[in-house]
């Protein structure tokens, strides 16, 4: 086991930030911690890294108890913080070299690692740039390079794509998958469900410091009743037609607003076909029609009754 957190409790005065939280991260996983802002994601990471003292519970990394002075464990961890932590006085190369130097004292070995990290994040053209001259996306890439240059076995990324443009975001996500393929175990926190869905092999959803769901994205989606969301563009739907539609088998809900009919159906096959058949039978003309599978937001919504981004 790479990480084992057992019954973790962290309080800030009366506020319980982590409420008897347990989790396990296995070797080779991309483990996603998903939750809205303030759900406790960063607090878990800070506790795992011994940056925060906790009130109760145990944390083991590489099957050894984690502590502030567990330097052998820290040697194999790469950390990419939510806030970019680089030195403005150092160039891109010097920054990566500094952080790599904290882990790898051998200069020759380090040089190769730094070059590899620069290649990995695609900052070759910016190696002599100072951080002030870099865009937000490039800065995030530098932050990642500083965290992974020493080739850690475990990489913890705490919301690494906040305020990043879509191109850089894709670049970062692809990089994370590549790191995982090269053997690193990844812990990834985000409140962007699309990212977590895209790259994580296992996801834990947090809310108010508690785990509310855990599993692969397929397993999580299987937990809820929603099977499909079908949206139909139509200009002529009467109230009695909407009521009749709601009575069709396997329909969970149907809403008509702004010329859009949104039908949520339960798990099962031929939902779309049944709706199309209903529209034809009732001679309801329609334009675009599309179907969506449930997202992690739908999972979160069904379990907690609120949106992920509330």
């Amino acid at each position, binding site marked *: 086991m790479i990480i084992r957190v057992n019954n973790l409790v962290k309080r800030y005065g009366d506020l319980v930030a982590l409420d008897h939280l347990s989790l396990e991260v296995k070797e080779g996983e991309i483990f996603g911690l998903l939750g809205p802002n303030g759900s406790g994601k960063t607090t878990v990471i800070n506790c795992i890294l011994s940056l925060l003292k906790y009130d109760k519970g145990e944390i083991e990394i590489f099957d050894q108890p984690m502590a502030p002075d567990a*330097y052998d464990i820290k040697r194999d961890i790469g950390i990419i913080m939510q806030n970019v932590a680089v030195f403005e006085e150092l160039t891109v190369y010097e920054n990566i070299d500094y952080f790599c130097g904290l882990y790898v004292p051998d200069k020759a070995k380090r040089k190769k690692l730094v070059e590899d990290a620069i290649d990995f994040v695609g900052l070759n053209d910016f190696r002599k740039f100072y951080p002030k001259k870099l865009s937000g996306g490039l800065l995030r890439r530098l932050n990642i390079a500083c965290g992974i240059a020493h080739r850690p076995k475990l990489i913890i990324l705490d919301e690494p794509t906040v305020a990043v443009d879509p191109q850089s975001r894709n670049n970062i996500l692809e990089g994370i998958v590549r790191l995982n393929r090269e053997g690193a175990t990844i812990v990834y926190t985000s409140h962007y469900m699309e990212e977590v869905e895209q790259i994580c092999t296992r996801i834990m959803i947090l809310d108010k410091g508690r785990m509310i769901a855990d599993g692969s994205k397929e397993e999580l989606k299987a937990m809820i009743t929603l099977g499909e969301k079908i949206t139909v563009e139509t200009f002529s739907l009467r109230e009695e037609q909407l009521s009749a539609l709601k009575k069709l088998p396997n329909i969970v809900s149907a809403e008509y607003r702004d010329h859009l009919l949104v039908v949520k159906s339960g798990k099962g096959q031929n939902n779309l076909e049944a709706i199309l058949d209903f529209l034809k039978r009732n001679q309801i003309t329609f334009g675009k029609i599309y179907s969506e599978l449930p997202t992690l937001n739908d999972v979160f919504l069904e379990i907690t009754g609120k949106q992920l981004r509330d």
Partner: protein
Amino acid sequence: MPVFKLCMKIIQKNLSSMMIYVAVFLIVATLLSLNGSKVQEAGFSQEKTNIAFLSEEDSPLIDGFQAELAKTANFVEVPDETEKLQDALFFRSVSYILRIPKGFTQSFMRGEDVRIEKTTVPNSVSNAYLDLNINQYFNTAALYVKTVPGITQEDLVRHLKADMESNTPVAMKADARQDTDNGFSANYFNYLAYALSSVLVLGISAIMLVFNDRDLSRRNFCSPQSAGKINFQFILANLVFTVVCWAVMVGFCFLFDHRNMMTRNTVYLVLNSFVFTLSMSSISFLIGNLLKNRGAISAVCNVVTLGPCFISGVFVPQEFLNSTVLKIASFTPTYWYVKANNQISSLASFSFSSLSETYTAMLIEAGFAVAFFAVSMVVGKKKRMSS
């Protein structure tokens, strides 16, 4: 030693702003020190005052007086017109106008109370000295007139001449004489206070600010480097920077004034500057712990370094400063540094008793170093705990 190297790079990045202080200091210190060399008192010589001597009568007594006055005054010819006499005083061609009124000699010889008219420039030390001479001459003459009835003017002048010739020799009483001129180094080391403290505040607070950044310190904490190792490298880097700054600044003094550098005065000046350097680096630690952004460094640097320099006698000698100002200044190490420098530069003997005041000042400077360092540690710890 990644942390040590990083500190050096941060200093390198801030070197240009530090060099401005060093360059300005070197220019100003050199110019001012060369102009402000201390004059050493080695003996006494009489100075002569320029006077206009206007007599409305001629008599042997007045002639004798004028001859005696010539020993302490230069007679300048000025026409006896009010405007021209006023001009002569205004333009300082004379500083004293002496007028002997008509009938002065006769009245004086009769023992009557007589007065000489004088017009002088205000607040002149040499005029006061001239007054003393004139009073002395006529008081002695009056004594003869009173005690020797019927004395002639010629006899009176002869007696007075003999009396006035008996001089009191003046010899400078000193334990020893300084063989070298400490003027340059004394001034240089005083001015050094400003440049050295500015460079230290700029450099050390820049390093502190970087390492006090919450995200960076957390990032460092996540590494396998122990806090002890990081702190050791950090303190070592600051110490190296401090010592290098001190050595460079002192080195320039050796360069400019190498002939006088091997004196014991200079050795003590160098020692004093080192103690002062330590106290300023402690203050820089504290400032670095208190500051929150880079933009504030140079503003705070100017206030913290320039202020004490002005009130402690770096730019204006302590003797010219108000006692209240000096009392306030005594709460800064700069005051004690300058005080010790002034004492050291005037030292001719180096016994423990003559050095005791200097040692006291140095100990107070060292006390400041310890106190500020302790406060900065407490502030730093509180800051870390809160983040």
